[in-house]
């Protein structure tokens, strides 16, 4: 085995240095994510965050006894927003609410904490992969890439999923190198939990697993290896049970609709857009280095895992082609892939660096360079976090909720499919299609008669609420229908409510 010629690594000579550096980096990563903690979670994937917030509140109110029964019932009913993944994070948060009271930002603390813990696993993995110095750089990238900072503080299952992906890859790599039962079982547990939390983690995890089996262990040997079977079973069992139960009992099969758009594979613009998404969220230079690194990796020990992860990511992108460029958080699991993949290049760079600059001064210069390089994305992320202020949103929606009377029978063209109205306005509503929803259905080959759809959706409804005026303008048919047939109940620059119960008398 290649005993890395990197003898003169800052951290290796002085283990306490890397331990303290890692601790500081993890704390700084967590601290950065705690800035502007109480800002309403609308800065990133607001629909998804409010979905979780509603769900967590609904769960919490099942235990709350000191509120009017109607409020309790309303919270539970508004929290019934459907099933996407098992509500693990929402359960944790709702249980925390029981101790602290309901604070929407608690989900943010958990997500940040999970992401930062993922950093610890990433460090351990890259350290085994390459070197301590490479591990430190990879971990810093993971913790402070601005897109990751913003996305990983969101109240959604993805940060936990990514952390678990990293833990499972770490266990997988340890198992590959040791063949011990302990690591096989740990991989199974981590991977199984990751898939259970969010099944989209399957691509990277299964890709890495297949890579190790095929490229490092060998297929024949693996088939006869009971450890492999246990790993596979543990990985699949929780999500398998949940999916079967979900399809049978929770209408989970509806989640598979409007997900796959293989026709996009034929469009070169799709791949170009994909590259743009990577460029803007992760950075093309680091991605290029990460890909090149695959070829610099040890063919038996390192390359299989890397190739497996990349193929997994590629299949992920092909399978969810539409979501890959409309939902940038689908790129979150790519951050650790890049961080891990960069390791062979970083190892090489550090080897050459120590070979040519053995003195203490160049090392201090290098540390200074890294710190300066860190300062820029940290400050940039901090700016983004501080400059977004959504504190005016809760009273706005509360006002509309009061106007609508927290009643049944509201349909709306409002932000986040009505989730803002539901969360802060305590007002349920049916979401009218946005242009994106309509386009998505056209893309899937469906034909929509908007006037007919309007008639269906508004049947029995009391009010039509509009707060997205750009969207309203984009749908002239609906705008004309409402304006020519219904009275306006209330109107400001920010919203208009149409009274569907008392249509205008047509001449």
């Amino acid at each position, binding site marked *: 085995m290649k005993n890395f010629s990197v003898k003169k690594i800052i951290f290796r000579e002085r283990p306490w240095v890397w331990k303290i550096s890692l601790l500081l980096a993890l704390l700084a990563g967590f601290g950065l994510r705690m800035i502007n903690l109480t800002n309403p979670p609308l800065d990133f994937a607001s629909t998804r965050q409010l979905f979780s917030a509603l769900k967590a509140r609904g769960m919490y109110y099942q235990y709350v006894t000191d509120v009017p029964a109607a409020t309790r019932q309303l919270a539970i009913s508004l929290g019934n927003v459907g099933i996407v993944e098992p509500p693990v994070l929402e359960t944790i948060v709702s249980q925390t609410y029981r101790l602290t009271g309901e604070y929407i930002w608690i989900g943010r603390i958990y997500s940040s904490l999970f992401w930062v813990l993922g950093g610890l696993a990433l460090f351990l993995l890259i350290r085994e992969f390459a070197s301590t110095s490479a591990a430190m750089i990879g971990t810093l990238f993971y913790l402070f890439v601005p897109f990751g900072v913003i996305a990983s503080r969101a109240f959604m299952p993805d940060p936990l999923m990514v952390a678990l992906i990293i833990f499972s890859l770490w266990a997988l790599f340890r198992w590959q190198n040791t063949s011990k039962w302990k690591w096989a079982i740990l991989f199974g547990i981590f991977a199984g939990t990751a898939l259970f939390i969010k099944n989209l983690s399957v691509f990277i995890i299964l890709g890495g697993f297949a890579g190790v089996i095929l490229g490092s262990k060998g297929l024949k040997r693996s088939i006869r290896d009971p450890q492999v079977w246990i790993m596979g079973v543990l990985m699949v069992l929780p999500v398998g049970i949940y999916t079967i139960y979900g399809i049978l009992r929770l209408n989970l099969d509806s989640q598979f609709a409007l997900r796959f758009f293989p026709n996009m594979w034929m469009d070169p613009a799709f791949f170009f857009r994909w590259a743009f998404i990577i460029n803007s969220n992760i*950075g093309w230079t680091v991605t*290029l280095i990460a*890909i*090149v690194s695959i*070829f610099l990796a040890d063919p038996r020990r390192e390359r299989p895992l890397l190739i497996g992860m990349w193929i997994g990511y590629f299949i992920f992108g092909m399978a969810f082609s539409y979501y890959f460029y409309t939902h940038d958080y689908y790129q979150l699991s790519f951050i650790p892939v890049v961080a891990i993949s960069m390791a062979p290049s970083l190892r090489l760079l550090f080897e050459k660096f120590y070979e040519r600059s053995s003195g203490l001064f160049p090392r201090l210069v*290098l540390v200074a*360079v890294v710190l300066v390089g860190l300062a820029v994305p940290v400050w940039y992320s901090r700016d983004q976090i501080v400059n977004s202020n959504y504190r005016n949103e809760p009273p706005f929606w509360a006002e509309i909720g009061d106007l609508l009377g927290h009643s049944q029978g509201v349909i709306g063209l409002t932000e986040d499919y009505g989730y803002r109205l539901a969360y802060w306005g305590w007002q349920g509503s049916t979401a009218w299609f946005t242009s994106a929803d309509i386009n998505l259905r056209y893309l899937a080959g469906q034909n929509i008669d908007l006037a007919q759809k309007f008639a269906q959706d508004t049947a029995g409804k009391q009010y039509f609420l509009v707060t997205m005026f750009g969207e309203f303008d984009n749908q002239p048919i609906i705008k004309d229908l409402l304006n020519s047939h219904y009275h306006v109940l209330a109107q400001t620059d920010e919203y208009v409510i149409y009274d569907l119960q008392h249509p205008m008398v047509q001449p």
Partner: protein
Amino acid sequence: MENKESTNLFSKPWLTIGLVVVLFAGGLGIRLLDLTDLPNGFYMARQYGSLLIARGMYYANLLTAPEWQRVFAVAQWKARGLIEPPIMESLTALTYRFIGEQIWVGRVYASLFWLAGGIAILLLAKDLSMRGGGIIALAYFLFLPFGMSASQAFMPDSLMTALIVWSLWSLYHWEMHRTWKSAILAGILTGIAILVKSVAVFPLLGAAVGMVLSRGSLKKILVDKKNWVVAGITAIPTLIFYYYGLFINGTLQDQFGLRFFPSLLKDPSFYVRWLFIAAGIVGITAMLISLAGILLFRKNAARLMLIGGWIGYIVFGFAFPYHFITHEYYHLPLIPIIAIGLIPVGDLLIRQVTQQKSRLPSAMFAGLLLLGVAMNMWNERNSLVSTDYRPEIPYWQDLGNLIGHDKNIIELSGDYGYRLAYFGWVSGSLWATNADVALRTLAGQTPPDFTSTFNEETAGKDYFVITSPPEWQNQPDLRNYLTAHYQLIDQGDGYWIFDLHQKIP
């Protein structure tokens, strides 16, 4: 043992050459896209200043032009004063003599110069035995978003940046060969770079000193005649120009006003802004890789040359702190420094890639590099075609006709009156903008009394013309005074004309 032979990305040389050709062709193509649009997207005032100089030079000998236009154009040229030697402008004016006055000629030259800088990067990489790394550095140099915008601008900075690279190459070439021929070439190229724009002295002096110091003994350095010859050749053109500008032409001394703001150096936020602007321009990842790359050069000469370049750039920032945080193009000398720092890292990676038995890694690497290039080109293309400034031409022409080309005006303008002068053939003195006042305040000057300044500035003028709505909005004193005391004789989309001879009783 490391292979010290130069690297090639592909085993077949024509493939590597083909890649380089594609990069240059793409670099030129993207810079010439939307060529005939007006140069309003990037430091407009600076570009129109060059356009007025070039037109004045051209009209000076254009006997077919109406006399008033000829006189006006030459007066506009002379009024610009000396900042740098008008090399780009002279070249452009000379070209006008063959093809007529075309607004895009300066842009073509600027683009070509920048591309020529790319050739020097390849030559330097070759001298460093790192040809593979040279391709990465070239791609970075040609397709960095800010570089693409800046290198299309009709201003001397593109030529200066290219000459910085040529100078760095010649300095290193001299170091490698130590011949009289290479020493003289280094002196000439460095001298021309500094002549084109004197601020090139900062990175180049730093780089030259760094490289010479890498030779060891100071005594040996001081007694080496070649060092003195290089220094002499470098200094002579600029000294002659400064002598001419300061003592013969006399307008160069104006350029030293409002340039130095040492008070900014005490403000920590200045350094944060500097870092952010620099990182935004060159890209933080590239900056980090390049800095790390310095430590990977095999020879001390290259290493110290680049460290010297960095020190020079930092000294440059200390000397011009205000401009460093307000004028992004002051950071252009950093681009070649970063590009050269990428060479060893790029070379190290390419060396590993090309050592693979399969051809796939090389092909994949080249493909991804080109995809990155294509993305930057696409972004640049979008920013170029998304704006069309051509409709401005009739606007300024009509305004010029409305005012009258013989009128003596004072103007409150957002572009120092350049567009009205260039398209409308009307010029006059300028009323200070808010930015001008802020700059003077920063320099410790006390804002003068409004009425006395107004009377002084408008004495003998026919019209007060406002062509900047934001300035008009943000100068209530002026707005109130003009509307209360003078007749507004015309008003349109974005302009107000007051007749200074018609006082409101």
